[in-house]
């Protein structure tokens, strides 16, 4: 009955469009062969091999499905990763960041710093042209950087060029001066999208400018955009660094992860930028599909942090500072660190897709990640021993250890919160609570929505333990700033951790222009954080993407970071021969 009714209904739908039934199948075939680009015609018979296109064939439309959609075409307003993907394709920046974490020339062919470390000189390419035909000059660079610097209502970009005074002495030279030497010069330029001065200077309120045409100098031009639905790009035939091989790239929003996976398997799309870990086995079994994992383009970490704000530093305005007294004891935190099996957490909660974490600097940050650190080994016996030695004993036999006499608490029962918008957090907190209970530490677990979590977190410090996470900037400086004494009142510090040595190192690295010397300081800061344990970092996230091997070739999969939607791939992919 059920099936018959369904068939009845389906035919009713068809009847609505009367004779459209036949063209329907035709329409589908037309679009399918278009997806295949030039392969559709040559792939049908084996004898046409001689006429097969050369290896780096051009043409074709690469179709990409992603789960979200860009929130703004205006680079100043963008917040979501999808928006930045578009900026990277449509705009150029003075300095680029490659997928191995190296800073590489883009619009700037080279750059140098004066001996006092205060003046940076960039030489620009002389053949970059905006999509509307106007040549790019140093005036555009100056204008753009000042635009991002001075428009305080842009959420992210102003924090990069805020230290610079910008001059354009001639058409291909830009001079940036700072008041103090800066250690992270290159990272401050990788998001400095250069927009055309002649279009933007007329906008009195750049935040309200929708930038619907996205005129830039990038390798693609914007052809069509439908909010929340799709973005269609065309190759910029006049791109100064050489045109992409494909003719078109289409980003389609498919929010439902299963539908995204299905679209890839059916050949409706050629690549998907994200997929649920549970879909990996199915996709791997598909001969035409390749599944890749790696560090995400924007490295991110999951953290478990403790409220250890000292009483005297409790924020005077917002502070509640109700943290459990025992957590201020380093021995307790050490025991808790020994009682988390990071690898098992990754295997169970993430189906293996993660890298065990150690500090606030993820592996995706290349050399800045301190690879010499040794983590607290998972050892429940040792963890219990540490608590025992420190005097925390379960005297009433209820399975939970009692507090020390001089602490204002009864036993080691901690509030444990996590954000309810995370898929894996429930499983993770369950595992962690399980291990902790084995060493006599109890938890009351409660998920909170992110806004409520913020309101108990910081700067109120009305919590004991929180499992949350951070997205990282390409430069480690931003995230390491979360452990500064000076950030306790601002709410950026989520632990209340305060250590003068750490702060001194932070200040020193910020003005150190020698790459090696700065890296050493950043390594030392990670070491201090691991020793003092304001944070336990269970893991760094890994990205998973998948593409069809039978439609396009040349996807860049060899780098440490994975971003097939990046220009590094889209500029070079070509139809499979």
């Amino acid at each position, binding site marked *: 009955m059920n099936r018959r009714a369904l068939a009845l209904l389906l035919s009713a*739908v068809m009847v609505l469009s009367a004779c459209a039934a036949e063209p329907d199948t035709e*329409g589908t075939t037309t679009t399918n062969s278009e997806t295949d680009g030039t392969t559709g015609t040559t792939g049908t018979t084996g004898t046409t091999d001689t006429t097969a296109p050369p290896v780096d064939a051009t043409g074709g439309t690469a179709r990409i499905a992603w789960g979200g959609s860009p929130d*703004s075409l205006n680079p100043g307003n963008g917040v979501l990763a999808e928006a930045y993907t578009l900026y990277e394709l449509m705009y150029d920046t003075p300095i680029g960041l490659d997928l191995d974490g190296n800073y590489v020339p883009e619009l700037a062919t080279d750059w140098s710093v004066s001996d006092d470390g205060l003046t940076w000189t960039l030489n620009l390419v002389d053949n970059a042209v905006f999509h509307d035909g106007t040549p790019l000059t140093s005036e555009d660079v100056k204008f753009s950087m000042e635009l991002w610097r001075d428009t305080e209502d842009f959420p992210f970009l102003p924090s990069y060029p805020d230290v610079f005074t910008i001059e354009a002495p001639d058409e291909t030279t830009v001079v940036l001066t700072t008041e103090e030497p800066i250690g992270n010069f290159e990272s401050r330029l990788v998001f400095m999208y250069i927009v055309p001065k002649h279009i933007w200077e007329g906008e009195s309120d750049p935040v309200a400018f929708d930038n619907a045409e996205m005129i830039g100098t990038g390798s693609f031009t914007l052809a069509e955009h439908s909010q929340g639905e799709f973005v269609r790009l065309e190759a910029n035939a006049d791109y100064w660094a050489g045109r992409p091989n494909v003719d078109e790239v*289409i980003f389609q929003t498919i929010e*439902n992860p*299963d539908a995204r996976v*299905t679209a890839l398997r059916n050949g*409706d799309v050629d690549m998907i930028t994200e997929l649920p870990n549970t879909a990996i086995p199915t996709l791997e079994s598909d001969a035409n599909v390749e599944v890749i994992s790696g560090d995400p383009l924007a490295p991110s970490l999951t953290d478990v942090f403790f409220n250890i704000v000292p009483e005297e530093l409790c924020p005077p305005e917002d502070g509640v500072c109700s943290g459990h007294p025992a957590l201020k004891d380093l021995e307790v935190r050490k025991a808790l660190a020994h009682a988390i099996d990071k690898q098992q957490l990754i295997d169970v909660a993430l189906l293996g897709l993660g890298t065990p974490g150690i500090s606030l600097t993820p592996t995706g940050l290349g050399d800045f990640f301190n690879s010499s650190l040794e983590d607290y080994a998972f050892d429940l016996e040792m963890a219990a021993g540490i608590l025992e030695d420190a005097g925390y004993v379960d005297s009433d036999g209820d399975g939970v250890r009692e507090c020390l006499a001089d602490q204002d608490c009864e036993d080691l029962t901690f509030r444990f919160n996590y954000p309810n918008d995370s898929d894996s957090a429930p499983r993770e907190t369950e595992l962690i609570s399980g291990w902790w209970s084995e060493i006599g530490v109890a938890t009351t677990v409660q998920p909170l929505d*992110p806004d409520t979590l913020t309101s108990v977190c910081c700067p109120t410090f009305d919590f004991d333990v929180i499992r949350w996470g951070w*997205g990282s900037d390409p430069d480690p400086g931003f995230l390491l700033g979360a452990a500064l004494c000076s950030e306790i009142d601002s709410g950026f510090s989520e632990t209340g951790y305060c250590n003068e040595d750490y702060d001194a190192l932070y200040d020193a690295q910020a003005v150190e222009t020698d790459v090696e010397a700065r890296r050493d300081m950043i390594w030392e800061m990670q070491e201090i954080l691991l020793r003092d344990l304001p944070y336990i970092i269970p893991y760094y996230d890994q990205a998973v993407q998948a593409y069809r091997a039978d439609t396009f070739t040349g996807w860049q999969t060899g780098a440490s970071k994975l971003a097939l939607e990046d220009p590094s791939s889209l500029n070079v992919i070509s139809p499979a021969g």
Partner: protein
Amino acid sequence: MAASRRRFVTQKVVFAALTVFAVVTFNFFLFRVLPGDPAVGGMRDPRLSPERVEALRERFGVDDPVFLNFEDGNPFESQYFAYLGALSNGDLGTSYAFRDQQVTTLLGQSLVNTLWLIVPAQMISIVLGVGLGLLAAYKRGTRVDVAALTFSLIMWSLPTFFLGIILLFVGTTWLDLSAAGRVTIGAQYTEIWDQIGDIVSHMILPTATLSLVLLGEYMLIMRSSLVEVLGEDYILTARAEGIPRRQILRRHAFRNAMLPIVTLIALNLGFTVSGAIQVETVFSWPGLGHLTVDAVNQRDFPVLQGAFLLLALSVILANLVVELIYGYLDPRVKGA
């Protein structure tokens, strides 16, 4: 007669207008009770410094008093009166999450997409639901009735997203239908039929899902309403007079039995504007429900206010229309 009719209409319209005002006010305060800061919108990024947040709050005006300004000067310099003022000029404001987009633009696009989905679905489900209900009532007690009833009950109680996912799987695996979106993006059509075919192949699954879910309710109401009417004395009288069953059904029973269905259809038209959310999510349809859910997550007050106003308006308008139509369908309502 004409005077009482006019009074009836005026009364209903005034009441609808008052309801709209109440809804506007209620929604305004409702969203502001939510915890969280629209300037942050659930974001967690070290680059979003306290200074940035402050600047954004100022831009959005959320640092002003909510209802009455007790601090300085004009007590009406508050978010609420600023909103009412803008609203009276037809200005719904600028989105917080899409900082360079007008709310009216966002709502307009989404509403068109939603209508594109729900209008065919409603039409199909009304025709099939009412038809199936008629059939079941006419063949009451037979196997046809039991089967139709079971089918409708199952469809009515099936969660929308579940049915959607099942149909998605079936449609994409065996029927080669499109998994997402409204059209094949960037496709070049040689003929208008290609384009229609493409649109239809994208519409079948979401429309079928929504139709099936709505159909059950229409069928059940139609059936029980008709069964009740068929049990009335005047039907018995008509049968005693020897009027053929078909004619009784068409002339005497159907019109009366349609009353509850008209109510239901009107109410549903109002609600389905928002109610297609699950279908929109499963099939990546960029409609109104979708926009609303995103706006809740990001505390995008202007979009929320606009969307809820639109929903309220559609429900209130649908009700108004029903009340007026009732006057024609059922003469007893006119005087009341």
